[in-house]
């Protein structure tokens, strides 16, 4: 029974947390960096870039997954290079699942970070500059702390989105129990196999985690 519990339940949960955690971290770093560039500088193609970076939010995850296949698949543009030069293949690995979850949750961080950074009054940043701060210092000591709440809210949502990621993950990493089967994939498999009580438990776990994240998010965003 214990072994069964571990294989059916603990493994997908731990894998999901690992995949979602790493994906959120990657989305956080990339999202804030992209938001900083778009909030700070005006350049031709800025609006187009914003649209492209937001695309994963509106596109069906399966379509995103297909794009990823084209990019990092065995015969993909980037995948071939990775395989030949570094001997890495992301297909059907949990790292591939991280990549899929990152792409899907990235816009949530990016959008909220951009809004938060643009909401930081220009005078605060200018005041820091006249007080001797360089651009990196202005960002780290003034802009980032003042935008932190918005960025945090976006990050929480990104984590929740990564936890529930299904379509793109399935396309890229497949549904291999013990290797790439995350909670949402496990639910699907359990239902397909007629294991109703397992599905119930899995659904309960996902629901609890998601509600907890939403409550935490609203706490972070609420004014003090």
């Amino acid at each position: 029974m214990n072994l069964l519990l571990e294989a059916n339940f603990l493994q997908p949960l731990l894998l999901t947390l690992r995949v979602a955690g790493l994906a959120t971290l990657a989305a956080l770093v990339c999202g804030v960096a992209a938001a900083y560039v778009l909030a700070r500088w005006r350049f031709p193609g800025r609006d187009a870039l914003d649209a492209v970076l937001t695309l994963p939010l509106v596109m069906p995850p399966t379509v995103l997954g297909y794009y990823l296949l084209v990019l990092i698949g065995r015969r993909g543009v980037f995948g071939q290079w990775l395989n030949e030069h570094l001997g890495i293949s992301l297909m059907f690995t949990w790292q591939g699942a991280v990549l899929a979850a990152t792409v899907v949750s990235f816009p949530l961080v990016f959008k909220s970070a951009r809004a938060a950074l643009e909401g930081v009054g220009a005078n605060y940043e200018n005041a820091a500059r006249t007080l001797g701060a360089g651009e990196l210092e202005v960002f780290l000591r003034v802009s980032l702390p003042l935008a932190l709440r918005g960025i945090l809210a976006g990050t929480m949502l990104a984590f929740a989105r990564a936890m529930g990621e299904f379509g793109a993950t399935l396309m890229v990493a497949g549904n291999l129990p013990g290797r790439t089967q995350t909670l949402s994939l496990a639910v699907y498999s359990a239902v397909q196999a007629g294991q109703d009580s397992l599905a119930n438990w899995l659904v309960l776990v996902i629901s609890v985690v998601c509600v907890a994240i939403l409550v935490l998010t609203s706490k972070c965003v609420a004014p003090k």
Partner: protein
Amino acid sequence: MGFELDITKELVDRRGARFTLHSRFATEGERLVLFGPSGSGKTLTLRAIAGLMRPDAGYIRINGRTLFDSERGVNLPPRERRIGLIFQDYALFPHMSVRENVAFGLKRLWRRLGPQDHARVEELLELFGLAGVADSHPGEISGGQQQRTAMARGMAANPDLMLLDEPFSALDLPLRMRMRQELSDTMRQYRTPLVLVTHDADEMAYFADTVVVYAHGRITTMEEDNGSGIDVDRVHRAIKDAYADAV
């Protein structure tokens, strides 16, 4: 203070209206007031001195030190200009205490405050009467205390020159009079030259040993105090003449 400035800047606003700033003056005055109605170019000039606005052409020199010179390709970033700026809304960092605000310019990313810096911060807090609210955040203190915090923060790094953008406009009248005197005394004590932007004639007369009068982005006249104070009437007449055909 040897102050030489000659800058031009052309701005186009969202509705396509053109505004041309042409600021040019030289003075030895220690207390310079840029005077004129809103939208006449004085704040823009102040921002250019601080390095927050890049002029199209010209030069800015203070005590022989070139801050900006379009011909020689010099444009020091704000952090290298050693100029303090007090914003109209103070722009105190809301996520830092009064003490942290004052210490901001002394601290760097890779360097903690030394004992000397701590002493300097405490000295300024004491001098500006902020010792009692040093651990409060800007939102928790009065308007007068906010202004003192902004002053203390600007003075901490010992700037060569202090710029003040309508520093009293957010205060009510009795407080305004008191802060005016406080600020004036402190600046004298530290012997820091200042450039003050205002459209308030009392303030201008109180601070100035030199007045530069702005209208429509240009300087219409310059008045210097020759021992008997600024001739306020002449300043008013100059502004009236400049705007005579506007109404």
